[in-house]
């Protein structure tokens, strides 16, 4: 019996179930907090009727959505129409597999973690474009086109910002990137890539807003001009899947940002025994990761209710003429500093 529990496949399955379940549980909480924070920012009260202080509101929303009529519009490409929401949701949750949520704890550890993550999350754009195309609706189509153009444009800047981080870490393995950001004591916080690569962090932050279609870059769903964008025609659980996919994508992007720039699961004041990790150590590291993740998610929500939406040409201008040159310059500078060993510019790990 004991052998069964120590079977690598069994452990992997348990980890996958736990982490994916946690991610799916965070989404309703996130929706609730988003609505409450939005209300407070706008001097309203927000949902507070369902359950104590309204915490069961997301549950009520899901039940309502589940009982709605599932409509497929006339002339829609039924096969692609059904596939699209899944294509948004699946890459978002798959990308989460490689995120190290704690010390040595992730669903699957690949040597090429970050590359896998960027590749898979890039597939999300197919879901949006397919949804727009298959709906047989001009607004959906424009939304889908915008989504694909926007995501492809910002993926370049995002990727280039990540490469600068990889150069510093000299690895594409996310756990090694995290360990590379370790520094003891209060000044150890400067080892975080947020301070080592501030420009890359800024570019990554802005691009991740665009990648997850969050305000100020939510042009694909731009309700003022496109009704609802690519999901205009979707109802019931298909709409819910789109919604879920969007929030999971936001979660994955935030988790990646914590991993790459905010030191992942460690804090400089707490020593971790990485060679022989104790259960409490792993739990503490998960807690630290969750704390950092929550702060970043709060930032996502906070920005959404602060900034107005960009115009489409402004979005493209920012992506191609500002972020990509900036990230290229940052990449070149980091490479140069590495080759010439300018440790005064960028402190090197060796």
């Amino acid at each position, binding site marked *: 019996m004991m052998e069964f529990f120590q079977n690598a496949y069994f452990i992997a399955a348990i980890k996958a179930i736990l982490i994916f379940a946690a991610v799916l549980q965070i989404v309703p909480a996130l929706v609730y907090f988003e609505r409450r*924070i939005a*209300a*407070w*920012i*706008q*001097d*309203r*009260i927000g949902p507070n009727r369902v359950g104590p202080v309204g915490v069961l509101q997301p549950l009520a929303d899901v039940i309502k959505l589940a009982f709605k009529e599932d409509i497929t519009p006339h002339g829609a490409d039924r096969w692609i129409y059904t596939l699209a929401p899944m294509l948004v949701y699946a890459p978002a949750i798959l990308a989460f597999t490689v995120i190290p949520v704690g010390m040595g704890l992730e669903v699957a550890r690949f040597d090429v973690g970050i590359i896998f993550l960027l590749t898979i999350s890039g597939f999300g754009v197919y879901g949006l474009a397919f949804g727009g195309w298959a709906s047989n609706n001009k607004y959906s189509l424009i939304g889908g086109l915008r989504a694909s153009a926007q995501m492809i444009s910002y993926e370049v800047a995002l990727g280039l910002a990540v490469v600068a981080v990889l150069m510093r870490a000299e690895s594409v393995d996310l756990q090694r990137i995290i360990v590379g950001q370790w520094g003891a004591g209060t000044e150890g916080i400067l080892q975080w890539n947020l301070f080592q690569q501030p420009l890359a962090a800024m570019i990554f932050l802005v691009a991740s807003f665009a990648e997850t279609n969050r305000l100020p870059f939510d042009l694909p769903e731009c309700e003022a001009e496109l009704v609802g964008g690519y999901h205009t025609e979707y109802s019931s659980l298909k709409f819910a899947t789109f919604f879920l996919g969007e929030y999971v994508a936001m979660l994955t992007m935030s988790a990646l940002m914590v991993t790459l720039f905010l030191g992942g699961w460690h804090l400089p004041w707490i020593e971790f025994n990485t060679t022989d990790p104790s259960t409490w150590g792993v739990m503490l590291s998960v807690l630290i990761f969750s704390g950092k993740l929550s702060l970043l998610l709060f930032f996502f929500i*906070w*920005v959404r*209710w*602060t*900034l107005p939406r960009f115009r489409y040409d402004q979005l493209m201008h920012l992506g191609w003429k500002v972020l990509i040159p900036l990230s290229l310059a940052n990449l070149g500078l980091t490479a140069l500093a590495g080759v010439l060993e300018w440790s005064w510019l960028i402190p090197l790990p060796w």
Partner: protein
Amino acid sequence: MAHDARDHDDSHPGEEHPKPSLAERTFFLPVAKGLGNTLRHLLKREPNTIHYPEERRAPYPGYRGEHRLKRDELGREKCVACFLCSTACPAHCIEIVAEEAPWSDREKRPRIFNIDMLRCIYCGMCEEACPCDAIELTPVFNIPSRTREEKIYDKERLLSN
């Protein structure tokens, strides 16, 4: 010269658009300011809205809600069925059928006085037109009902308001 100089001269003093400074164009300072503003509201938490069914805001004076037909000191309706309100009504929602009044101080009184509350636009013209001060608008605004028929108020309903 028939040509308007302003079409070509960018430096015309009246037409100047101040070029945004570098700090404004990079967005960081304005965005930080905006974030500070929303954070202040977030932490202050003084909602301008209320918990509606439990808390109710008193209507402002002069609020135009449901109608009421008034009675005089003898308990008779003041209305003399002169039709001025239904004539003034832009929505044609007042239906009056007159009958002879049993009292000596007036000739007519309404036998039927119906207001279709679904057609009414709550403009208060009936109140303005009434020579006897017999009809007025009350501040009652939450007036739901389950059928359309219920929303045609007859004389008794209006007198009891």
